[in-house]
């Protein structure tokens, strides 16, 4: 794993996208996340909004943008559930921040690193979600950790395909 200084990576490899992509891709991810479980049932082991959040946070390499992106996507996800609005928001805010912070320091073009990172961040997101529910809000919520593990694996698999696809929308100088 190659480690570079933050300034050099930021200057060299900031990915830029058309403005429409920043709005459209998260929206498509949210719609698919809400629609696909209807077809796949209990086998919908993925979290597309998280994948998109991590992708943009890694590409933009800006913790602030990653934080805002994660917050917006998480709140949107919460709005589609019947839970309190902010639980997913907090989890994905931290994940977006972490992804951007890590993306500054490591080479995220490597596929193995990407997959490993999305796997760990998925578990972190699940842990934060449960932490907020149980300890911050004091709500009784049972958790199936195997499902969270499968979800992390699913996110990793999707990232393998989705990240190269989304890279096509980059603006090249």
């Amino acid at each position, binding site marked *: 794993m190659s480690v570079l200084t933050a300034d050099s990576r930021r200057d060299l490899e900031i990915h830029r996208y058309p403005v429409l992509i920043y709005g459209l891709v998260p*929206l498509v991810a949210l719609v698919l996340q809400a629609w696909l*479980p*209807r077809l796949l049932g209990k086998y*919908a082991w993925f979290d597309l909004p998280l994948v998109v959040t991590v992708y943009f946070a890694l590409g933009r390499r800006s913790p602030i943008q990653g934080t*805002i992106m994660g917050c917006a996507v998480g709140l949107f996800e919460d*709005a589609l*559930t019947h839970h309190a609005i902010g639980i997913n928001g*907090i989890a994905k805010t931290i994940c977006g921040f972490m992804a951007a912070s890590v993306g500054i320091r490591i080479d995220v073009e490597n596929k193995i690193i990407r997959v490993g990172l999305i796997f760990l961040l998925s578990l972190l997101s699940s842990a934060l979600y449960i932490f*907020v529910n149980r300890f911050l809000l*004091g709500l009784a919520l049972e958790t199936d950790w195997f499902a969270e593990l499968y979800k992390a694996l699913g996110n990793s698999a999707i990232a393998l395909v989705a990240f190269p696809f989304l890279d096509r929308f980059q603006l090249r100088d």
Partner: protein
Amino acid sequence: METLFERYRNLVVLLAMLLLQIVGLAVQVHRGDSGHMSLDPHDSKGVRLIRLWANAIVSPPERLFHSAGTSTSWLWQNYFDLRHVRDENKDLQKNLDRLRLEQAALLEDARQGQRLQALLNFQEKYIYKTQAAQIIGTSGSDQSRLFYIDKGADSKLERDMAVITADGIVGKVREVYPRSAQVLVINDQSSGAGVILETTRIRGILRGNALGQPQIVGLMVDSRIQPGERVLTAGGDEIFPRGLPVGVVEKVVRDPDQDGFIRVVVKPAAHLDRLDEVLVITSVEPRFPPEQTQDMATSEALKGGEVAEEKAQKKASEIMAERLPGLIDPSLPPDQQPLNDTSNPNPVTHPPMPLHPDRFTPGTDMSTGQSVTGGDVTSKTAPDENAAKKPATPPSKSETKPPSKPESKSANPPGKAPAKPDKDATPQRNP
């Protein structure tokens, strides 16, 4: 000089975002009466507005996806998969005819069941007014098991309406938007439905677990609960009507949180993971489709014919009763009518006198062997018979007495021929 904010800009933004969301969460959660934290079942105006916006953004694409999927499916089924459809249509038509006949029979049974329920003051109805709806999306989270349907306030849906399928219950309407609604499924951890086990009649509350399985919680250990037992709605939650199928008991496990309690895992009757269309119960007033209404009218007409027939039979029986012998004899004066006869219509019959009475014979003196009242008895019951049977025996005092006149009016009513002795001495009732 670099300020503190500029230096830790990223962290400050992160903390600010987190703080805002934590404050927002604190507003939405409150402590319940039992001391546990819980979410308000009904959203505040601000939260509802956010959900409304999110739903307004997501629903149109979901409808588009759903329509595209339906169109593709329609195209496949109607263009590529039309082989043997004519034969299938004939078979289906036969099945339809058979089912209509069965339906008519079942309808009559249903009506009988309704009448019995009304007698027992049950408020349940057999058929409910429902609104069909299609599922267009989900929450996207396995921690929040709910889905969105394509009917909302425009279709007069309201909160807390029950959502079912033909197989069993599905959930309840949690939130209603103008053209869509949010349905909380019974396998969500925050759902709740009153259920009853069909055989053991044990009641409980159904809610989901982390695996998305509905389970009955808060039950004491009971060995009578066995896998395979049917679970029905109990009707006490004022959402689900009583008696709807919920599922069958899959297994019984110990409650890890409470000693002495069990959790009954239920296999849902409805396929909660593969739902396409659902029915929302919008009213509990019975409403029959036109065909059934026509059948009911026919049934009522037939029933009316039966009633008329019963009336005719009753009238005929009354006419016959007037013609049959009665208690009024028009040929007799009022004071001699059999109706005014107060005597015993079935007089006591006595055994015939023995040919050789001794001291053990009833009615004789134990010491002397003389008859005490035997003459009276004999004379009352069968004077002619005794006189005919005892000429050879030495005449006793009682036997020397002349036969007394029968005292009973019924035995010899005035104006009538002498009554027959013994069993024939019943009052004559002539018309």
